[in-house]
């Protein structure tokens, strides 16, 4: 690990349901819970950046020829 890399610690308050989802994703993806949260943060930032520029996010169902827009508040 780079010697200067500082890590900050935070306590996360989650509901039971949220914790279950976190644990499930962690197991599924073979990642620590921390790693899952970091992935989520990276994804959130990226989506936010592109949506703020006016781009749109779609889900596409190729079989049904359907495109559904996903909006983020």
């Amino acid at each position, binding site marked *: 690990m780079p010697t200067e890399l500082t890590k900050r610690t935070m306590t996360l308050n989650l509901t039971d349901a949220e914790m279950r989802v976190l644990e499930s994703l962690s197991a599924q993806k073979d990642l620590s819970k921390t790693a899952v949260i970091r992935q989520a943060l*990276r994804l959130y*930032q990226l989506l936010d950046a592109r949506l703020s520029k006016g781009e749109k996010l779609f889900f596409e169902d190729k079989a049904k020829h359907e495109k559904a827009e996903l909006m983020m508040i």
Partner: protein
Amino acid sequence: MRVRRKSSLKVPAREELVEADLVDELSNDDLINAHLDWGPARLEGLKRLREAGRPWPEHWHWDWSKKADLLDLLAYHCFGIVHGGRMQGLMMVSTIAGKGRLPGQVGKPVLYIEYLESAPWNYRELAEKPEFLGVGVRLLEAAVEFSGEEGFGGRVSLHSLSQSTEFYRKHMTDLGLDSGHPQGLRYFEMNMEQVRTFVEGRKP
């Protein structure tokens, strides 16, 4: 730019390794400066190929305006190898774009290499004699190491340009041309066993 750790490169036809810096946290300027430094040598190399009637390597161009935005995002990390005050190779990775396709790691997070390139004076195709060997190996090693740090087990994946597929085939699994890629490039993925082989020097 920050020195992540010490590394080294090989000088052709000599046993010795020369010290190099593995750098990260490159700024927009760092990337631009590297490409400006590479420009003249690449120019010479391409001219030479053209005069010899040889085909240009498969080619692409940076969209500089888009690239600058990506550097600010947590999802993307840039690495470089510096020796002699010059950028010898560059790499950009994404922690969120990669998803395993190989059996045994389907759906698992994989570090995805968005961009990897060596300075033109290190390529046999473009330079008369490559200056340093192992730039690609060092960057792939850095990707594998970073993948490990992120909890991805060392797994990496990438899409290769056609002139580079032979190199990747040595260390990764070739999953074929990928219609999901904007240019339909060939997709390669490394599983944890291949990571061990790559790092420990065994023959795959």
